[in-house]
C-alpha cells in the first residue's frame, strides 16, 4: 500500500473528505443558520438586509457540498453508494429543501406584493431550518450506524429508518449550533436595531445549543459505546473534547464583550472541532453496521485503488491553494456591513 509521510492513501483521503465536509459545515452552516432566524425579523428592510448578508456567498458555500459529494465518490465509492442509497429519503428531502431555499432566495425580492414576499420568507426560513436539521439527522445516523448487510448494502426500513431518537437529538444540536453560528455572522453584517435584536437571539441560540450538546454527549456516552472507545483507550485524545468545550464556552464570553469577529472564529472552530471528534471516533470506519460490525464500511473496504487516490490527491494539492485564494478574495470584497444596491436580492 502506498504512503505519503508514512500515512496511507485512504487515510489521507479520509482527511480530505473530513476537511471538505468541515469547510462545508462552517460555510453553509452560517447561511442555513442565518436563514433559520429569518422569520424572527419583522421589518421588510431587516429581512432584506439579512437575506443579502448571505446573498453573495450562499451559492459558493453550496459548492462545498458538491465538492464533498465528489470527494466521497472519488475516494470511497462503496461508501458513497451505500450511504446515499441507504439514506434515500433524508437525502431526497434534503435536495428538495435545497431547491426550495434557492428558489426563495432568488425570487423573494423580485415582486413587491406582500403575500409574495411573505410566502418566500416562510419558504426560505423553513427550508433553512429543515436543511440544518436534516444534516444533523444524517450525521446522527452515521455516528450511530445503520443496518448494513453482508453485501455492504443498506438493509433497513425504506421510509422511516432514518428517524430515531439519537438522530433527532443530533438534528436539533446541529440546528442550534448553526443558528448560533448564523446569528454571529449576521451580527458582523448588520447595524442598528436589527443588530440589537440579533444579540438577544444569539443568547437564546447558544443556550439551546449547549443544552442539546450536553444531551447528545450523555446519550452518546451511555448508549453508543463504540463512539467513545478510542478516547478511553488513548487518554491523549481527551484533548479534543476538552478543546471543544473550551471553544464552546468562549462563544458566549466573547459575545458578551461584543467581540463578534473572534466569536465567529470560535463558532467556526467549534464546528471544526466537533467534526474532528466525529472523525477520530469513526476512523477507520466510515459507516457502522448495526447488524454486524463485520459489515461496517471502512476506509479500506470502500476505497478506490491507490492509483486513483494518488491522482485525486494530486488534484487536491494543486486545487486547494486556488480555492482558498479566491474564497478569501470574495469574502474580502464583500466584507463589512451589508449595503443594498440595485444588484441586491
Amino acid at each position, binding site marked *: 500500500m502506498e504512503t505519503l509521510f508514512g500515512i496511507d492513501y485512504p487515510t489521507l483521503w479520509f482527511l480530505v473528505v473530513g476537511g471538505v465536509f468541515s469547510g462545508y459545515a462552517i460555510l453553509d452552516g452560517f447561511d442555513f443558520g442565518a436563514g433559520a432566524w429569518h422569520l424572527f425579523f419583522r421589518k421588510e428592510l431587516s429581512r432584506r438586509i439579512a437575506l443579502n448578508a448571505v446573498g453573495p456567498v450562499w451559492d*459558493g458555500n453550496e459548492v462545498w457540498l458538491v465538492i464533498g459529494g465528489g470527494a466521497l465518490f472519488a475516494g470511497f*465509492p462503496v461508501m458513497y453508494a451505500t450511504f446515499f442509497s441507504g439514506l434515500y429519503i433524508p437525502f431526497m428531502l434534503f*435536495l428538495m429543501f435545497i431547491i426550495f431555499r434557492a428558489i426563495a432566495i*432568488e425570487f423573494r425580492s423580485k415582486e413587491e406584493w406582500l403575500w409574495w414576499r411573505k410566502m418566500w420568507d416562510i419558504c426560505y426560513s423553513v427550508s433553512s431550518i429543515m436543511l440544518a436539521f436534516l444534516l444533523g439527522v444524517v450525521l446522527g445516523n452515521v455516528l450511530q450506524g445503520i443496518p448494513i448487510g453482508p453485501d455492504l448494502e443498506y438493509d433497513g426500513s425504506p421510509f422511516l429508518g432514518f428517524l430515531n431518537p439519537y438522530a433527532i437529538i443530533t438534528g436539533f444540536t446541529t440546528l442550534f449550533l448553526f443558528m448560533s453560528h448564523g446569528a454571529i455572522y449576521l451580527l458582523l453584517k448588520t447595524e442598528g436595531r436589527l443588530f440589537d435584536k440579533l444579540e438577544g437571539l444569539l443568547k437564546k441560540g447558544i443556550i439551546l445549543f449547549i443544552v442539546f450538546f450536553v444531551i447528545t454527549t450523555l446519550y452518546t456516552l451511555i448508549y453508543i459505546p463504540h463512539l467513545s472507545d478510542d478516547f478511553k483507550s488513548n487518554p491523549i485524545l481527551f484533548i479534543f473534547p476538552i478543546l471543544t468545550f473550551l471553544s464552546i464556552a468562549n462563544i458566549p464570553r466573547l459575545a458578551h464583550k461584543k467581540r463578534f469577529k473572534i466569536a465567529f472564529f470560535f463558532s467556526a472552530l467549534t464546528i471544526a472541532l466537533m467534526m474532528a471528534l466525529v472523525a477520530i471516533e469513526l476512523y477507520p470506519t466510515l459507516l457502522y453496521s448495526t447488524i454486524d460490525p463485520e459489515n461496517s464500511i471502512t476506509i479500506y473496504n470502500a476505497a478506490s485503488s491507490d492509483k486513483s487516490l494518488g491522482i485525486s490527491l494530486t*488534484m487536491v494539492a494543486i*486545487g486547494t491553494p486556488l480555492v482558498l485564494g479566491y474564497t478569501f478574495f470574495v469574502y474580502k470584497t464583500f466584507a463589512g456591513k451589508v449595503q443594498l444596491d440595485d444588484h441586491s436580492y
Partner: protein
Amino acid sequence: MDTEILARIQFAFTISFHYIYPPLSIGLGLIMVIMESLWIRTKNEKYHILAKFWTKIFALTFGIGVVTGIVMEFEFGTNWATYSRYVGDIFGSALAAEGIFAFALESGFLGILLFGWNRVKPWVHLVATIGVFLGSMFSAVWIVVANSWQQTPAGYHIVGEGMNARAEITDFWAMVFNPSSVDRLTHTWFAAFLAGAFLVLSVHAYYLLKGRYVEISKMAFKIALGVATVFSLMQLVTGHSSADGVAENQPAKLAAMEGHYDKSGPADLYLFGWVDNESQEVTGIKIPGGLSFLIDQDFEAPVTGLNAFPEEDRPGQVNAVFQFYHIMIAIGMFFIALTLYACFLWWRGTLFTNKWVLKTFVFSVILAQIGNQVGWFAAEMGRQPWVVYGHLRTSEAFSQAVTANQIVFSLILFFVVYALLLFLFLYLLTKKIKHGPYDEDDNDMEERRFTKEITNQVANTLNA
C-alpha cells in the same frame, strides 16, 4: 413499474431539466465576456448596460443550474449505487477535478460577477466574468469526459467478478482522452454557445420588432449573430467527427441512429423517416448509400448493422434514437441556413428591417434548447442497453437497496418542485425581458434614481 424503469425515468427527468440551464450559462458566459471586453476597450457605456442586463439573466439560469446540479451528483449514489461502485475509481478523479477546478472557480467569482459591479474595478470584474465562464467550460470538460468514458471506456482494467466487478483506472490521460471525449466535448461546448447566443438573439429580435432599445439591441444582436454563425458551422465539423467516432467505437449506436439493420451491407442516409423495429424497415426520404459514403467516402462500403449484434446487446428504442438524432441534425442545418442568411442581410444592410427573419429568431431559441436535449437523448439511448459500454448493463446498475415505492415518492416530489421551478423561471425571465436593460423613459429613470436615493438614506438612518 419496477425499480429499474422508475430509476431511469427519474434520472432522465432530472437530467433533462437540469440540462436546460448549464448550456445557457456557458453560452451567456461567452456573450457576457465579449460584451464586457468591448465595454472596457471602447468605453462605450452601452456595452456596459448590455453586460449588466445579461448578467441578471445569467444569474437566474446559473442559480437553477446549481441546485438542479446538486441533485444529479446525489442521484448517482441514491439511485445508481451499483454503477457508482463500478465506476467510482475512474470517475472519482474526474468528479473531484470538476469540484475543485471548475465549480469552485465558478462559484468563487460568481459573487463578484453578480454583486461586484460597484465594488471592484472594471478589469477586476472582467476577470471575475472570465473566471465564471471558464469555470463553466471546465465543468463541461469533466462531466463530458466521464460520460464519454461510459461510451468508449479507456485507460482501465476490470477487477473482481459478478456483482463485485469494478473498473479500476490504469492510465489517467488515456481515461481523459478516451476515443470520444474530444469530439463530444467540443460538440457539447459549441451547442452550449448556440443555446446562449440564440437566447440573446431571441430577446433582442423581440425588442427590435417592438421598436424598443433599438440601438443596443442591434449591438447585442450582431455579437450573438457572430457567435451563432461561427458555431453553427463548427457543429458540422464536430458533429461529423463525432459520428465517425461512433461508427468506429459504438457501431450498434450508429446503426440505430440511421435505422440500419443489415449486418454488413451499404447503409443509407435518411433526411427523415420512421423505423419499424418489428419488420426492420425504415420509411422515409433517403440518400442511398449516404451513410456508407460519409464514413468511408464510398457509397458501396459495408456498415455494421443492428443484426450483427445479439438482440440483448442492441438499443431497445431504435425509432426513438433515430428520431432524436434526425431532429438534432435538422435543427443544426436550419441554424446554418438561418444564420448565414441573416449575415447576408446584415451585409446588405436590411437585417434589422426584415420582420420575418427577426420573428424566426424570436422562436429559434426553443429550437436551440430542443437540439441540446434531443442530441443527448440520441447519445444516451443509443448507448443502451449498456451504462458502461460493453461492460455494465443499465439493468444491473441501479441501487439494490432502494425500493420502487421510494422512487415513486421522490419522483412525485421532483415533478412538483421542478414544475414550480420551471414556472417561476419562465415568469421571472419574461419579467426581466419585459423590463429591459434600462428604463426607457428618461424622466422615469431620474425619478426612480431619486426614490432609490431616498430609500437608501432612510435605510441608513434606520440602521444607524
